[in-house]
């Protein structure tokens, strides 16, 4: 009994320390009620995309924000997760739980191999190597004609027993459950001894080594965990769009994940989710805004989005969570002020 009470206490402490995150997760649970009464079913779709991208970004944030490892290839893990659904369906396996299981193992293994090779380097080399591995997998799937090659393959949503994913609300809540579980898991990881060590490695690797710990091992574990989270997001992503192609792991998606994290705030739990909300709302609203001002150029919204990103880098220190911290007057997370170097 006391173990359960301890656990609840631990969760309570974590929730108290990460109110923004849990407010957002809670908000996503209530969002379908709003869309139902406002009769805006389209926005459920946007919310699902936000949750999926936010989940992947949370996974990446573990290595990027907390570990200081600038991985530019995490789209590959999303892709592997997505292709695990497609390929297992290709061989007649339609059980969604099996898809999830099949995606976790390959993503973990891919994370292990790529992490082992890439983590021997640091700085620019690390960025480029993770990018190169992602490109390698991208071209692998482009050239695998059996699985659709360039055109990709259309897939059916997995069967999760009693949860019929063709009911949009059930799909929504499956994704929501995954998001909540990932948030909970990451909250524990970040607050654990492991998470503290990871952050310590980021601020001073040689000191951790001098303390008798192996930084490489900690980084590897972090890398694998983040790969698996991205893989889970990818699995659900494939189910959501009922289609998978190499596009899902294009290198620009790795960039998108990074943008989401920096927009929201590095090394914070709520940051990636907040960043995903802003990123996708911009993506939805900029064409509309531009269409209202200059209808001929509505499609060219990136001409505003690109400079906007540059502005965020030049002037927006600490991302949105930094701004929220400053507004609410709480002491900000020391991490994103120190910077990852």
């Amino acid at each position, binding site marked *: 009994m006391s173990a359960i009470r301890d656990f609840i206490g631990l969760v309570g402490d974590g929730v108290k320390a990460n109110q923004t995150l849990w407010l957002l997760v809670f908000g996503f649970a209530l969002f379908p009620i709003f869309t139902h009464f406002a009769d805006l079913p389209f926005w459920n779709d946007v919310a699902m995309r936000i949750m999926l991208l936010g989940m992947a970004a949370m996974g990446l944030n573990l290595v*990027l924000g907390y570990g200081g490892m*600038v991985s*530019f290839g995490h789209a590959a893990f999303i892709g592997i997760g997505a292709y695990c659904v497609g390929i297992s369906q290709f061989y007649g396996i339609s059980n969604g739980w099996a898809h999830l299981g099949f995606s976790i193992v390959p993503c973990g293994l891919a994370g292990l191999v790529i992490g082992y*090779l890439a983590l*021997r*380097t640091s*700085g*620019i*080399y690390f*960025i*480029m*190597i993770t*990018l*190169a*591995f992602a*490109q*390698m997998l991208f*071209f*692998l799937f*482009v*050239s*695998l*004609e*059996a699985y659709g090659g360039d055109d990709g393959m259309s897939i059916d949503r997995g069967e999760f027993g009693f949860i019929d994913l063709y009911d949009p609300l059930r799909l929504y809540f499956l994704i929501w459950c995954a998001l909540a579980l990932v948030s909970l898991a990451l909250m524990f990881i970040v607050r654990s001894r492991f998470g503290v060590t990871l952050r310590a490695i980021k601020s001073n690797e040689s000191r951790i080594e001098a303390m008798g710990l192996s930084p490489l091992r900690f980084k590897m574990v972090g890398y694998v965990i983040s790969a698996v989270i991205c893989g889970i997001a990818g699995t659900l992503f494939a189910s959501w769009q009922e289609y998978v192609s190499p596009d899902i792991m294009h*290198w*620009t998606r790795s*960039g998108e994940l*990074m*943008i989401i994290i*920096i927009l929201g705030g*590095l090394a914070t739990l709520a940051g990636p989710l907040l960043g995903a909300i802003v990123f996708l709302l911009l993506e939805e609203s900029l064409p509309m805004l531009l269409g209202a001002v200059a209808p001929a*150029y509505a499609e*060219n919204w*990136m*001409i505003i*989005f*690109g*400079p*906007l*990103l*540059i502005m*965020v*880098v*030049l002037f927006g220190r600490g991302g949105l969570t930094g701004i929220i911290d400053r507004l609410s007057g709480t002491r900000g997370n020391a991490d994103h002020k120190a*910077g*990852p*170097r």
Partner: protein
Amino acid sequence: MTLTLILEQAFNGLQAGVTLFLVAAGLTLILGIMDVVFLAHGAQVMIGAYAAAAIAAATGNFYIGLLLAVPVTFASGYLLEFLLIRHLYRRDHMEQVLATFGLILFFNELIRIGFGPAALYSDLPPSLSGFVEILPGTPYPVYRLGVILVGLACAIAIHMFVSRTRIGAMVRAGANNPAMTAALGINIKLLLRFIFAAGACFAGVAGMMLGPITAVQPGMGEPLLILSLVVIIIGGIGSVRGAFIAAIIVGLVDTLGRVFLPAMLRLVVDQATADGAGPAVASMLVYILMAVVLIFRPTGLFPAKG
């Protein structure tokens, strides 16, 4: 027949290699001296290609297009460094990735607005569209041969400049130890702006020369950018010599791999497996090469930092 094919493909690989070198030469110095991750270098390739195609279309002369596009790309590189990049030197890598990613989106969209989303195709002048026999019975397009020669000439010029001139010595010193170079009274900021503009210029030349061979379209420089990053990693960041050798290796491995690997696999495994796996392995070949190099030489073949 096979010898002809091998020779022809080797020349194609060489052409891909020198083009890659033109993109990688400036980028390796930008990465090496200022530790800046500059992803928008592919946009410079695109700007060069569009400038050449547009000027050629306006004047009706292919050569004037090539000639006038050079100052255009130099100016664009210079302006870009002055307006944005110099503010990024002290930022961390992630912010540089983000800002230059924003630049890519911006430039692609700008080109899309200016020239439309469709690809431009430019015709070669008659003097360049013929074939020349590189060996008796082995015809090869004059234009591609010209690309190889121009690329090699640029490589030699860059090499002479970096290894023989005073400014070149400053560049090498900067790549080896930027802080110490600045302490010796060398204006490393000005030096870097010059390298940046020159690097943009060479990337632009690569784009101009690729124009008639491939489609000139928004985002055309991105595959080239990623391959040139592989080149830089294999060659060692900051090393022009390393970039040249690695570019030729990558160009040859990529081109020859795609042509001959499926056939070679057929000797080892059965036809169906070889036809399935051949293209897949061939397209991954350069990345596998990079991984192998990094396992044995984590800082590349010719690291500039001493």
